[in-house]
């Protein structure tokens, strides 16, 4: 099988190791991976802030960048949700682009979705010693992926999973929300960090760069011993 990687702008700029881990993991599982170089950002920041005209242009750019008919895999529920759920609606009134948007939406998969539901692999043969806890990214709720990441984590050898209280509560990132209302966002991420610390885990695992920069940044500021990892990095550990 051949797939294209949608690394996302945050993944490209801030956490390249997540993209690297995704590529290595997929190749280890026998999947051929390419990286369409024209990709930049899916346009979610513009869409969420109500700049739909701008978002439409970026959607078209992204659709064009992934026009090669292969499945698209992204280590981000947030960007996958933008493509899968919002593109078709955003381009609904466009005779040409609506169909192309629906085509890309169908071909695009968040990483855990791809592994569990397309490759049918719940055990990817990973090994990581330690105690982890899992934070559910909000967009996985929208995508209906409430089981997949945990299933994959449960099958990592050596990894003990500690349940996280309010694991599906937003960490407070929300893109522009965290800049516009840093007080509310800050209160949310501090609560999240405290609950993560309470689990006694060595590492918190999430599936999105947004959550990781927010939670990770807060854990760092608190001088916390808890590390943070993307699901792809955990699954790529052997």
């Amino acid at each position, binding site marked *: 099988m051949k797939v294209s990687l949608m690394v996302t702008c945050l993944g490209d700029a801030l956490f390249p190791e997540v993209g*690297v881990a995704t590529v290595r993991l997929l190749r280890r599982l026998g999947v051929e991976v390419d990286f369409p170089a024209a990709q930049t950002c899916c346009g979610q920041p513009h869409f969420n802030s109500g700049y739909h005209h701008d978002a439409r242009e970026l959607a078209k750019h992204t659709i064009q960048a992934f026009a090669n008919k292969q499945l698209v895999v992204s280590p981000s529920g947030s960007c996958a949700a933008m493509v899968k759920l919002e593109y078709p609606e955003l381009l609904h009134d466009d005779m040409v682009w609506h169909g192309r948007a629906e085509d890309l939406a169908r071909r695009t998969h968040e990483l855990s979705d791809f592994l569990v539901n397309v490759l049918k692999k719940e055990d990817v043969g990973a090994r990581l010693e330690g105690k982890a806890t899992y934070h559910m990214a909000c967009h996985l709720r929208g995508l209906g992926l409430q089981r997949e990441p945990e299933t994959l984590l449960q099958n990592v050898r050596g990894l003990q999973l500690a349940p996280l209280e309010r694991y599906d509560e937003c960490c407070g990132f929300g893109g522009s929300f965290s800049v516009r209302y840093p*007080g509310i966002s800050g209160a949310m991420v501090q609560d999240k960090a405290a609950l993560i610390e309470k689990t006694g885990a060595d590492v918190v695992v999430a599936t999105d760069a947004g959550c990781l920069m927010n939670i990770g940044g807060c854990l760092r500021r608190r001088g916390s011993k808890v590390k943070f990892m993307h699901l792809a990095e955990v699954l790529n550990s052997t």
Partner: protein
Amino acid sequence: MNYAKHEHHDFAGASAQALTDPPLQAALARLTDILMAGNRRSYAALADSSALRDHAKRIKEHALAHLDRYLEELEQTVTKRGGKVHWAATAEDARQIVVNIARQAGCKKAVKSKSMTSEEIHLNPALEKAGVEVTETDFGEFIIQIAGERPSHLVAPAVHHTRESIARVMSHHLQESLPDDARSLAMTGRRVLREKFYQADLGITGANFVVAQTGTIVLVTNEGNGRLTTTCPRVHVAIAGIEKVIPRFSDLPVFLKLLARGATGQTLSVYTTIITGARQPGEMDGPEEFHLVLLDNGRSKILGSPFRESLQCIRCGACLNACPVYRRIGGHAYGGVYSGPIGSILTPLYDSVSLNPDLPHASSLCGACQAACPVKINIPHMLIGLRQMQHRYKPARLEDLAYAAWKEVLRRPWLYRLSLRFAKVFLRLFAQDGWLRRLPGPGSGWTQVRDFPAPAKRTFRDRWKELNS
């Protein structure tokens, strides 16, 4: 009675204040934890809650699509049972209608069962101005009425109060010293309110549902005050938004199942009061007059807008309980009568989009509201829709230009790569092992409580080549 005076709060200020109020924080966490646990448990206990919620949504969709027909049917069925239907285009019209009913019937003392619609039209001050004494009989509403406040939650209006503050407010109002234990406060409330029920000549309620087929209004309470309000006084006025109409009586169980579960996690509320018209010949009780005020107040405009789905709301409060933002700031910070995620849509729509610029942004768009909503309203989408609408109401700002410029960069991969390179070199000058402790300008809020990641030394793009060698 001293009602809140400011229609439009400073949201940023009010929410910041709420964040530094420990008793409020504790009360919100306790309430939302309990109600959300109930919500999840009771949805899970249904055979197929998702299908039931879809079914309810379809009924609402159908009712809204044929609203004209069902409202006319409703007027006929209510009239047939001896009731009178009043059409109120605006909040002002609705206030005037209720005041006139009170005047014509010579009513001086009103009791009210909890009604968000009456809050929406600010009914109490208008009645008091007309010389009618109004008493709220839902215990939570009673507390905020005597405290001169507004509800801070759709179903738990006094959640911002503690036992101690309730004892203070009630002691002050009744001029007696009350202990701060829940039982004696409740018993005192019961004693005071029971007397009000006996004296009242006007009963005012909202309506959780209005059935077109039978001309029935349905009230759901846990305290029984709705039943007393509609049986003791000789005149009953019910105020309902036009979107509360459901077609058939057989639709009712669908919504009763979902309302109680969504709101409190109950299987059914303690009292479900089903009223069809005034007292009929041969009946033992019920009011002599029954009036139904049907309120538009902007709803018919919403019906033909992209925000139509908001009219499906059954006011259960589940989205408030699920919302991590509401949990942190409480209802008053939102500034409107309706709070939480649904309030961030209703307040701008019913009130003014341009005067409520903050509310649509008061959300991380996490979608917990939609997941909890009994009729699965896509609240995040409507918040985004309002954000989009705002751009039409204000002149171009720096933010618009920044987004437009950013888009131009993102459309050109070479420019994106170049910008990223500049950002990387610049930001890494200030970083310590890859993280920034302080950001200037709009980013300064972020770095109050957390570090910000600087771009990596080598982006993924840079590393892609080595992955293939």
